[in-house]
Every structure is written in structure tokens, then in C-alpha cells.
């Protein structure tokens, strides 16, 4: 609906609405005591509003660094990152970020952890409780509201973090291997949940993963990063129609083609990585 005023827009990639996130000639060099690491080199990318974009690449290809820069917690060494057309210069309150490491507050229960972003937004207690209850149910944590993080498994802690990100309804969500440590079954369940949430919400999602199957299952487009210095090697438009069934999608003929393309692009780097 808000795409109407942008219909004249004719960027090559933005055939479905305005650009939410734009990266122009972005480079990142880490300088640790004189040892320079060129992590990302000349990355150009546009993420459309409401798009589900996946980023895959070998370890050390700067995927997490890319998300950190979009989130505004780490500035690029060169180049510009725009959010809604404005250069990113700090943390954006419209962006939710599900990081790879555990950042739950150990002294708060599950419900109180999920409450943190709502407390920050000064939501009254009653409204907070209703919202927390709904989100707890959605991520399947009912009955664990009063548990402390130490009492939960790794997968459950991930779900609390997901709930904590979803609960304040950010328009863009960055996810860094959110389902990485989960078992295959739970992973599929949560992928299905995520797709359902996303398709009802017109949120923009940038999803970093090392799992090609996961990337194809979820995303509109998959970006392949090369190993260090990370460059965009391939942008694959995923042609699988929506709504997708996360269980059935991998048996479609188109899936195999996508998998082959992406694997070919990634393979060289993975082999090089393995030989180190």
C-alpha cells in the first residue's frame, strides 16, 4: 500500500516496492594492533521493503560484520549504508537484531527478558503482559515464563531471544544464524513459524545462515559472499512460489537448480577454507 508513491521507481532490483536498506561500495577493514584484516570489500546491495533476504557464505566471509554495520553498531570503513534513504549513523530503533551470541539477562525470567524492549518503550504493565503472553505462545514457550535462562536449553534460549526481538515489532529484523544450534526438527518448525510471521507482517528480514537449504526455503533472494575479503559473488532470485511449505519446498524441481547454483558459487571458497 505504501509502495504507491514509489511506482515510478525503476531500480533494477526494486521491482517490488521501495528500498529499505541500501549498501554502496561498503568496505570494512579491522585493525587489531597493526594487523589489518580486510573483511568486506566493495559490497553493493539493495534490500527491498518487505523482502526476505538471505546471506550465505563460508565462515569468516564477514556475514556478521555486514549485519553489525546495518544495525548501526559498527561503522563501515568506507562506503555508505542507508536505511529508508538516510545514512545509518547509529543504532536504529526500527531495526531488531537477533545476534548469534546469547544476550539474555541471566537475572531475569523468560517473561521479564521479553519485557525489556517494552519497558524501554514505557509500555504500561497490563499491555506489556498481554503482549508477552501472546508472543510466548507464538514461539512455544508457554509454561516457561517464570524460568531463568540458566534453566533452559540452548534452543529455548534462542526462542526467548526471538520473542524478545519480535515483541516490539521492529519493521526490519536482522538475524544472525538464529537457528544454528537447533536440531533439524525444531529448526524446520521455527522456519515455518518465521515464514508465517513474516508473510503476515510485511517486515524486512536480512537472514544470515551457513545453511543453503535454509536460505532457499526462506528467502526471496540469496546473496553469496566470497571468503575473505567478502565480496558479493552471486545474487540468486528464488523462484519458489509463496506461501511455501517448509517441509515440501525442498522436493520441488526448482529447489534443486537453486541449490546447484548456490553450491557452485560457494564450493570453491569452502574447499579453500578446508585446506587452510
Amino acid at each position, binding site marked *: 500500500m505504501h509502495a504507491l508513491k514509489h511506482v515510478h521507481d525503476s531500480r533494477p532490483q526494486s521491482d517490488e516496492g521501495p528500498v529499505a536498506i541500501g549498501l554502496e561500495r561498503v568496505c570494512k577493514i579491522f585493525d587489531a594492533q597493526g594487523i589489518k584484516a580486510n573483511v568486506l570489500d566493495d559490497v553493493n546491495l539493495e534490500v527491498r521493503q518487505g523482502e526476505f533476504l538471505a546471506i550465505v557464505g563460508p565462515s569468516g566471509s564477514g556475514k556478521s560484520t555486514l549485519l553489525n554495520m546495518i544495525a548501526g553498531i559498527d561503522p563501515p570503513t568506507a562506503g555508505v549504508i542507508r536505511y529508508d534513504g538516510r545514512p545509518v549513523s547509529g543504532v536504529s530503533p526500527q531495526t531488531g537484531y537477533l545476534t548469534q551470541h546469547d544476550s539474555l539477562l541471566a537475572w*531475569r525470567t523468560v517473561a521479564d527478558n521479553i519485557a525489556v524492549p517494552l519497558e*524501554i518503550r514505557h509500555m504500561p504493565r497490563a499491555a506489556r503482559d498481554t503482549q508477552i503472553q501472546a508472543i510466548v505462545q507464538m514461539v512455544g514457550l508457554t509454561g516457561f515464563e517464570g524460568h531463568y535462562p540458566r534453566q533452559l536449553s540452548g534452543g529455548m534460549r534462542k526462542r526467548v531471544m526471538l520473542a524478545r526481538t519480535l515483541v516490539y515489532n521492529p519493521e526490519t529484523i536482522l538475524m544472525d544464524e538464529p537457528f544454528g544450534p537447533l536440531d533439524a526438527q525444531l529448526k524446520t518448525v521455527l522456519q515455518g513459524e518465521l515464514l508465517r510471521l513474516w508473510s503476515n507482517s510485511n517486515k524486512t528480514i536480512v537472514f544470515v545462515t551457513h545453511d543453503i537449504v535454509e536460505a532457499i526455503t526462506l528467502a526471496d533472494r540469496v546473496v553469496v559472499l566470497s571468503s575473505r575479503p567478502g565480496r558479493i559473488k552471486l545474487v540468486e532470485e528464488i523462484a519458489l512460489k509463496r506461501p511455501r511449505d517448509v517441509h515440501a519446498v525442498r522436493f520441488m524441481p526448482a529447489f534443486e537448480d537453486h541449490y546447484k547454483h548456490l553450491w557452485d558459487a560457494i564450493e570453491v571458497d569452502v574447499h579453500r577454507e578446508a585446506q587452510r
Partner: protein
Amino acid sequence: MSAPDIAGDAPDTTRQEKGARADAALIWLYRLLLLLGVLAIWEAAADRLIDPFWTSSPSAIAATLAKWLTSGLLVQHLFVTFKETLLGFFIGAVLGIAGGTLIGQSEIVRRTVDPFVTALYGVPKIALAPLFIMWFGIGMMPKVVLAGVSVFFLVFFNTLSGVREVDGKLVEALRIMGASRWDIQRKVMFPASLPWIFLGLKLGLPYGFVGAVAAEMMASNQGIGFLTQSSAGQFDTAGVFSALLALMAVTSGLNEALGHLERWIFRWR
């Protein structure tokens, strides 16, 4: 479906719990025996091996304590020391937490003041007592100040390490959610450094007592320190021991209470 699990676990845990409880009871018994043994040796040694003028005897101490308790003397003096210590403890703790939190905000500020604070910390607090007595007279004030200073440094240094040890990832996570500096202070920095702050408080409490009692010994007409000093002045060894024993009981009780509070606050661990 979880019923067999529970059934399978139950005997094991109860057996373990029972074992632990039996151990605890046994240890209490041993403690009692140890105490009685020491008291018996002391009692036997007095009059036979050592002149009770120097070491008194458990029975004499018990008599003195009973006399003091019935006359209300002990409670009156204990109460004074108690008040001085707690007031000093409270003031020192508040200033220590506030100071540590504030200075922990900036590495530059911390490094600037570090040598000065460390130098001040190195001064034996007792050595400040004459100065405080000179400034504030012989009432409760110099005792409160000395207790406060003793507590302050311990709480300050512990708070400072606590603030510096906070996991940067947690701060970052809250920043991404749009938290203000104040939010981060309240929701991450303070609760995350609470274990360190508590350690400072626990270490500080006995030092607060030491400060108050030491100042009382130098110049005072009330308090446990005064009672000890005046008993010694009258060569009343039983009186000195009685006063010390009372002080010991009070500090043990307070430490125990603080331990309970700690377990309640950190129940998430």
C-alpha cells in the same frame, strides 16, 4: 509420559538430600563438641595452669555476661555500637556504590583518580580516628565516619570492578533495542555488578564494626569498644572477654543475615 522419569529420579534425589542433611547434622555435632572441648580445656587450665587474672575462665565470663544482660548494660552499649556501625555502613555503602558506578563510566576518569584512591585506601583507617575525634568530638559522629570510610573503600572498589566486568554484548543488545544510557545503567550495569557490590558489602560490614569499635576505644563513654576499654582499665579480664564475645555474636548474626539476603537476591544463579 514423564511419570517414569520422575519415579526414576525421586529415590535418588531424596537419598542424596537425606545424605546431605545427615552430614550437616553431624558437622553441627562436631562443632558443638569442638566448642565444648575448648571451653573445658580453658576452664580446667584456669587456676591450675594459668592465672585467671590474665585469661579469666568461661564460668567467670558467663557470670559477667549474665550480670550485664540482667542489668541492661550490655544491650545498651551494644545498641550504640550497632547504631554507629549501621549508619556508617549505610552511608559508606551508598557513597561507594554511587562513586564506583560513576567513575566506572569512563576509563579516562577511572585511570585519572586511580592512584589517589588507591593511596587513600592504603592508609590504615584506624590512623584516621584521632583526626575524626578532633573534628567531631567524642559522640557517635567520629565512629560513624570511621565505619563509613572503612566500608566505603571496599564497596567502591568492588562496585568499580563489577561495572568494568559487565559483558559488553548485553549492553550492545539493549542498545539495539533502543535503550537509553539510563536504561542500560538500570537494567544491565547495576544488576550485572550486583554480585560484586554484594561482595563489597559483605567484606565491608566487619570492617565497619572494627572502625566503630576502634574509635570507641580511643575516646568514648559508651559502646562495646568503651566497655572493652573500661573493663581492661579495671583489670577485669572477664569483662573484656564478655564484651568481645558479645561483639562476635552480633557480627556473626549480621553476616548470617547478609548471607540469607544474598541467596534470595541471587536466586537466578
